[in-house]
């Protein structure tokens, strides 16, 4: 698909050559020669120009890295992800915390409130 911006068309050379982004150099070359046979310059000069221009933009690794920089990049495949395991144990610290809170609940905090006395002189 050729994605266009309002500024300038971002012709996708991979789309012109009917390639996937992941295709290697050999596949790019094969696609180019197949299309050139299908659209020879003497019969289809404009189409040939388009094919040639697209090929030039991705034929070498260097050119390709520059071209890819200004093309929309499709999302990568979802990598294999490990699911996390759950901690379904009963923890001793939680038992103690529960017991502490049960004990705290029995305390009368008010008993510890003490109003300070000011000196008499």
């Amino acid at each position, binding site marked *: *698909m050729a*994605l*266009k*911006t*309002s*500024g300038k068309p*971002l012709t996708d050379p991979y789309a012109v050559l009917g390639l996937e982004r992941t295709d290697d150099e050999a596949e790019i070359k094969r696609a180019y020669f197949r299309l050139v046979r299908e659209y020879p310059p003497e019969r289809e000069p404009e189409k040939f120009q388009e094919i040639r221009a697209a090929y030039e933009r991705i034929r070498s690794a*260097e050119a390709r*890295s*520059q071209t890819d*920089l*200004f*093309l*929309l*990049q*499709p*999302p*990568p495949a*979802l990598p294999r*992800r*490990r*699911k*996390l*395991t*759950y*901690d*379904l*144990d*009963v*923890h*001793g*610290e*939680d*038992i*103690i*915390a*529960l*017991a*502490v*809170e*049960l*004990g*705290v*609940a*029995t*305390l*009368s*905090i008010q*008993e*510890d*409130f*003490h*109003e*300070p*006395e*000011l*000196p*008499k*002189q």
Partner: protein
Amino acid sequence: MAKKKHIIPSVIRRGTVVPAAPTGARDILQEGVRLLRRGNYDEALQQVARARELHLDAAWETAARELAAEAHFRAAMQSDSPSNRLSRLEAAIAETPDAPKLHFHRGVALLQMGRFNDAFSELDLVAQRQPARRGLAYLYALASIAVGRPWSPNGMLPAELNTVRLVEKLVYSNGRSGPITFEGPLLGKGVEMWQALIAMRTDAAAAPTRELKVAAEQNMRRPIARILRYYQGVAALRQDDRETARSAWTYVQGAGMTSAALEENLTALLRGEVIELAQAGRWQEVAQRADRLANSNQDRILAETVALAHYHLGYEAARAGKWSSAVQHWRKASEWAPSRHIAQNLALAEEALGNWVAAAEAWREMARRRPRKEDHPDYLTDAQVAAIWAHAADCYAQAGRFDEVEPCLRNALKYAPNDVALRLRLADFLLDAGRQEAAEGQLKEIVAIEPQNVEALVRLGRLYEERWDRDPMPIWRQVLAADPTHAEARDALAEGYINMTTKRSILAPIHLATLRPTASDIEVLEAGLKELPGHPKLLVALGSVLADVGRDKEARENLLQAYRAAPQNVEVVSQVLHDLLHAQAGDVVEKLIPEVRQIPHLLPAFWFSQATQSLNCKFGEEWAFAFIEEALELGKQPWVEDTRAGLLLEAYHIARQGRAPGLSAELERRIRAEVPLSGAVQYLEAAKLYYDKKSKREAAKLLQEAIRMAQKAHDNGVLRYTERLDMEMKGLLTDFDLQRALLELLGGKL
């Protein structure tokens, strides 16, 4: 006079004591006590601070300390958060370090925070100072169990003792120690919670969800309920009931529970759900789930999966042309897990929206944040970084932000100093900005990198042409060394030679009429022709000079050579025809005219120019007439837009300005005969009245008639002339136009 009112301190009013401390401090601390009573602890502390500013004596300082400690203590007891409580208690202990109750409650807070060793030390201290304190034996026993120390049953109530015994069994059970039993009574409402926890502790598959739910409902004190709800979630997940688990854990998280297991379980739950949705390609649901739990991006895999969801959603939006939506998704993707490709797509989407500055900044951001390690998957080579900076420059240029273009291009060049195309762009930018010196520097650098770079040399040559202090000819020679057929360089070099002749020297505009060619001019042009053999402009120039000095035969040969070298170049052909007449070669001109007629899309102006020049140089009316005939004949061609009447009027004006009365009369006759309804006749009359008889009113009348007729006849050629005369008569012409009109009135003579 008003009587002064004495305020008597309350303590004196009660008649109990005489104040020993400063009166102000007493009042202040009394107010502090009042505030303490009302529960305004921080205000009470402010009163203490105010009193201390008065330099209290020992007794009052002690009182101030007690008040401050009590205020901190009560504030601590008011807080639900153990860490807040702890810091308040520590502030209180700083005031009264020996108060056992403060150490007891500090121990409790440390227990609640899971800092069992610290809690044990603190409660141990209290056990020495206040062994009979209510609740101490129970909590001290729990702290001892937590740190693996022996504990004593002394001082505990039966429920406390039973609970401690059960806790010890639960904490130290390892699944091989047999069934756990307990005796009542126990602390807490109902025994379901203990039964449920025992079951879960001893059997990894036990899932007493309902019992824990009931227990949590019975024990609603928040710190207790949240532990029970957490285990309700654990029990639910043991049965793979993720919905109940999520609900329970979300609740306890909201209730302030913080434990590694809770965090781990919530993350695992969310990650599992998100990965399942992502594997099914349900990206929208992944994004929605993430939006609800936005703070869970601590987990790298979770964050990357959510970022991937937004990446997909943005890409789908972009494919549908919904660039704003794409921008939003890719921004979110960047927040979750930034990557080079997301940043790149974001910048391209901003471009698509025409947000050029935002796009430029996105590209800059991408360059700035790129990973520097070569083995990183998002690593950018220097060439790529240069391309990004250059692209950012384009975006700024699109936005008209030219101030940012140069820095971007210079940044690009830092990464690709030998990229001559890039340097040429900077040079062009500097040339457009009129910064010739800076541009020259860049162009010279390009030539240093690539001595035969024609594009840079040509720009340098053009730049030098505009300057008095630079000689462009060596540059043009460099261009020709790289590309011997370079037309611009050949022409420019030829012009360089021509400019060295007397007529074209810098003094020529002033002394044009008096300067005569010299022998050295001929030498200069011959040298030029040696360097540029057969160059038509040099041949014409040499022919012209030779004709001027009377060497007509040689002039004729050179001019003919020039014609043969560029028979389609109207500039050369025009000069050749005219200079042939100077060289007394009218016969050759006559022979050439039929060939010249064949130049494609030649315009009448070419022949009118020949006519004007022939009249100026006094070659006789017959040559002017011949050229005018050619012009009129050319008027029949489809590419000529002017009308017949318009061409005749042009010819008539040339004849008048050239002081050619016979030709003028003939053309006037033709105008009257050939185009009587075009308005040209009326225009002629009006012009004569205005210019010759100075009768402006009569001229105006006739001019209006001419305009009317020309409009009726749709004769734009005539209308062009009427409009000009009309403007002139109304004084609407500029100074330049008036000077031209004056010049015309004078017959074109200075």
